[in-house]
């Protein structure tokens, strides 16, 4: 009986591993900061189909909305590099999406149009300086209009 039990457990484990393996392939995206992404593009390094672009903010004044404010084109920057982005996702852009917001994008890079086509946009307002340098915090507090 013990043999049957171990055998059964092994079968279950293998089934689980297989299930995880095949589901894996289709859902991965490479996480890159904007700087790393630009570098890879310029050096011609291989990048995966799906990319998650983090650590950048929306350039003020760069947001171009369509007629009903459902889709937008905008530029993102990390202070050094800039990239143009087109939102092509189905869902609405999050409420937190606006100028200078910190964004994480997921999507594909369009080589011909040299723009990033994002189908997922996560945004956060930049004024939560939890845990960072105190002087940054004071600055941020003063920037917020009371």
């Amino acid at each position, binding site marked *: *009986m013990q043999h049957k039990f171990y055998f059964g457990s092994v079968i279950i484990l293998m089934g689980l591993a297989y299930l995880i393996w095949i589901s894996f392939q289709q859902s991965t995206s490479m996480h890159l900061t904007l700087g790393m992404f630009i570098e890879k593009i310029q050096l011609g390094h291989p990048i995966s189909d799906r990319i998650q672009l983090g650590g950048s903010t929306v350039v003020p004044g760069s947001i171009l*909305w369509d007629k009903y404010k459902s889709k937008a084109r905008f530029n993102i920057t990390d202070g050094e590099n800039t990239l143009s982005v087109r939102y092509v996702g189905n*869902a609405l852009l999050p409420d937190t999406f606006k100028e200078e917001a910190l964004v994480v994008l997921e999507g594909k890079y369009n080589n011909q149009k040299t723009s990033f086509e994002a189908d997922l946009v996560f945004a956060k307002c930049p004024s939560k300086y939890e845990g960072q340098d105190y002087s940054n915090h004071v600055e941020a507090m003063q920037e917020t209009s009371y």
Partner: protein
Amino acid sequence: MIDIGYFSLCTALVFSGYATIVSFAAGRKQDLSLARSGENAALVTCCLLTLAVIVLWHALLTHNFRVQFVAENSDLSMPVFYLITSLWGGQAGSLLFWGWILSLYAVAVIIVYRNRYRDLMPYAVAVISSSSFFYCILHLFSADPFTLLPTIPENGRGLNPLLQQPLMAIHPPLLYLGMVGMVVPFSFAISALLSGNIDATWLRPARRWMLIPWSFLGAGLLLGGKWAYVELGWGGYWGWDPVENSSLMPWLAGTAFLHSIMVQERRGMLKVWNFFLAILCYSLCILGTFITRSGIISSVHAFAESNIGPFFVTFLVIIAVLSAALLYYRLPKLGPENKLESFVSRETAFLLNNWILLGILFAVLWGTLFPLISEAFTGQQITIGPPFFNQVNTPLGLILIFLTGAGPLVAWRKSSTHSLKKHFARPLLFALLSAPIILGAGVNDFYAFVSLTLCCFVVAAIGLEFHTGTLARKRSTGERYFIAMFRLSSKNRRRYGGYITHVALVLLFVGFTGKAFTTETELVLQESETRRVGEYDLTFETLAYGENAGMQSTAAVLSLHLNGERLGTLLPERRYYKAFDQGTTEVSIYSGLLEDFYLILVGWSNDGSAKFQIYINPLVKFVWLGSIVLIFGSIWAMWPTGRDRRVAKVDTQNALNMNKTVESI
């Protein structure tokens, strides 16, 4: 005033440390007076933390912006309700709140078991106090809620309007009551290992004190989903985000534990496994807190970066290593009392249940931590999206729901073919008869079809359990049918509370199945225009503008008709909060039993037209119904029965008699 708060934290650190050391010594020496001293220290710790929390609440309510936390998380315009809930609106305050809840759990356990489980209690108090001590360290050295600013700002920064929602306000406390509470079963497990009392005694307090946090955690998870659905406007309620997964994983481990302890209680098997699960549960809680608060994995919930990560990692490593060592030490004495005799037995069903739950847990853990793993091994961070989680968890979930129905139908040790035929026949028949109806209703997706058919099977199996039990009781007591059913369920709360919870699971699965058929449409409407959406007729009547001191709003007024009958008015809105420079989307939902009509106002134009996005979400209401039934079922299962009270009384008497004997020597 603030100094009192800070001083309380310092003193709490001392008392929790004292409680840990003294309770541990009390366990070693089996000395009652030392144990009482340790327990008293834990009680004092709770009082001190309560004082600290009161001080912080006072600062929030009196707008004391000198305190950094108050300035960052509240402002002059917030109503009292949100001032209170802003206690957990920022890192330092929420950690203090967490530590306070931990101390409240300690007090609860101490009071409830003051005369019981005397060989386990000292070590249990030691373990809980050591966690308390860790959180006091955090309060003082990493996230001090009483840090003062050098100058007093005129106004605070306030709470983002997205978070000023009642659902959002209760969500953290529920989750904390869940995650924090899992220290209690963990402490009883460690206590059993330390004291050598490794028979089934520890399972009794562990079970009750796993059920309580497990229920809170489940409620918190579902409430978070409801908030996301109603407030965020992407039409869904679960995104497999790392922070969401962090609170799901302990819940999965807890569910596995609640099932596998039944095998140890009945057959003396899975002893090591139960210890492992209790340790795993608490470790996952700490891991979850670490993932959420350290910002190490980017998530839509929090981009916060802070120095708190290393504290949690250290704590987690200490706990994991010490627990593993203890378990290894006791391993020789933890052999099973019985062996698995047949694949067709309830033991096997529970084992399979645990395998599946842990399989889901592993998949979720893998997917959540993969960015860190891939970065560690390849230097490249790779994230895993929702499709992975859905693809793996759907078949696993289907096996799980099947077991929910089949498990109670198989006997312990070995089910004879006759018994199987007798118990499975009617539920299977019901499922087979439902299958064509389900197909006929248009369910052509394979997983959805299997899911709904299995749900019918489970409902029939549970219904049969209630029915046969009621009939048996009727025969002996002559009560009326539903009275008999009520009395039966009250006397066997574990079993029938469990069945009610399983019904809840079925409802949830029905709701989840609906996701396979969600449709999404975008359309532009002119004023007074009507358009057909699915089977509905949507008429855009007009735009309406509103404004008050803090907020501007544009709403669209629409009416919804189905087959000529007017269903209602929909008012999707777009608001703008000036102080925060923050817009919000207020979704308008017409919620029917079979589907939700989910309407978003995307934007409008000067020519009077407006663009709308519509999701038709089938069966979502079943998720919220299932949530309510789950809470009801958990409370039903937890509620002490007459038998529990009698056992407690006997235990207490024995303990008091033993004390008298000891004192008289």
